């Protein structure tokens, strides 16, 4: 007559190896490291900009090191991954109802992609890439 419920502990530092979906989630989490560092780089860049043309040029120079190149490629990849996962889940947080029907997720997510592409093109255009 003895109950003895058995508790299976979740390993706090390695749980995410258990399922591919957890790995996908952790990949999304890790993007914050890259985007976080990149945000700091942006601030440093702005500081250089504020400090005058020489410092700005020095900043641009510093970007050209191999370490920086590697980082930025990685950052770009992670940022893209972050954006896509964000767009895909965005419809969940703010459902939009038109008449009786709820707007299908694909429309809201699709809308995000469209805005993203247009905005990116606009910024590239503004920056004089084309």
């Amino acid at each position, binding site marked *: 007559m*003895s*109950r*003895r*419920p*058995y*508790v*299976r502990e*979740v390993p*706090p530092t390695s*749980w*995410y190896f*258990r*399922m591919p*979906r*957890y790995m996908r*989630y952790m990949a999304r*989490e890790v993007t914050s490291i890259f985007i976080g560092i990149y945000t700091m780089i942006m601030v440093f860049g702005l500081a250089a900009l504020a400090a005058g043309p020489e410092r700005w040029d020095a900043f641009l120079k510093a970007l050209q090191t191999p370490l920086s190149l590697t980082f930025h490629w990685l950052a770009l990849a992670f940022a893209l991954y972050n954006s896509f996962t964000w767009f895909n*889940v965005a*419809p*969940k*947080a*703010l*459902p939009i*109802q038109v*008449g*009786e*029907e*709820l707007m299908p997720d694909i429309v809201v997510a699709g809308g995000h992609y469209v805005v993203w592409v247009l905005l990116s093109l606009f910024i590239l255009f503004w920056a004089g890439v084309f």
Partner: protein
Amino acid sequence: MTDNRLAARQIELEILRYDPEKDQEPHFERYSVPCINEWCVLDALNHLKDSIDPTLAYRWSCHMQVCGSCGMMINGEPKLACKAMLRDYPDAVIRIEPLAHFPVERDLVSVADDFMDKLKRVKPYLIPGKVRVPTEGEYKQTPAQLKRYRQFAMCINCMLCYAACPEYGLQPKFIGPAAISLAHRYNQDSRDGGRDERQEEIATNEGVWECTFVGACSEVCPKHVDPAAALQQVKVASTVDWYLEHFMSWVKK
């Protein structure tokens, strides 16, 4: 009717067994079970219990994906045993464990007390906004208003989402996806006026803020409740509340 559906198959079931009166800890046992391809895992378990080992303990009732009893881990995924069709498991071995993140009472039976307590805590019942008595007739509710919460009312309390949510595993105090979704179901109901009371429970650190939007809950939910969506919506609404309360208290008063 084409019929490899009815094809016979021999399947190895690798089942986590635990008898608290005998075992120190759970262990796997392997059974070779003659099956039919169109069976679900529950059929295989029932066959095993009837003709091979009557001591196996597991829960089931409806065999039609609606009572929510038969949740278990099948090849590492939280599933309803009556919805997991053998034809979707082509491998010879299927591994079956009790739902993750819950204590094991015995074999495939997990302890559900924690979920039941949390469900009660979030007040998942109608707290009428404007009280009406039944003799005055129904509360009017348009199909559009019904649609705003119906999806969240489809929860069968199977607890698969708890077994999938890593944050619940790491922090068992987390009220968790299904209970919060049910609170949200009532918050979204045009007849309800109890949101403030429910917020006291779910807008807390143990409530919706423990959720980091892993989204696993929605991926495993057999009834397409989409608890992850419910939780994000609760977060958005709670954030708006917070800003209104702290920075724009004059708006309310």
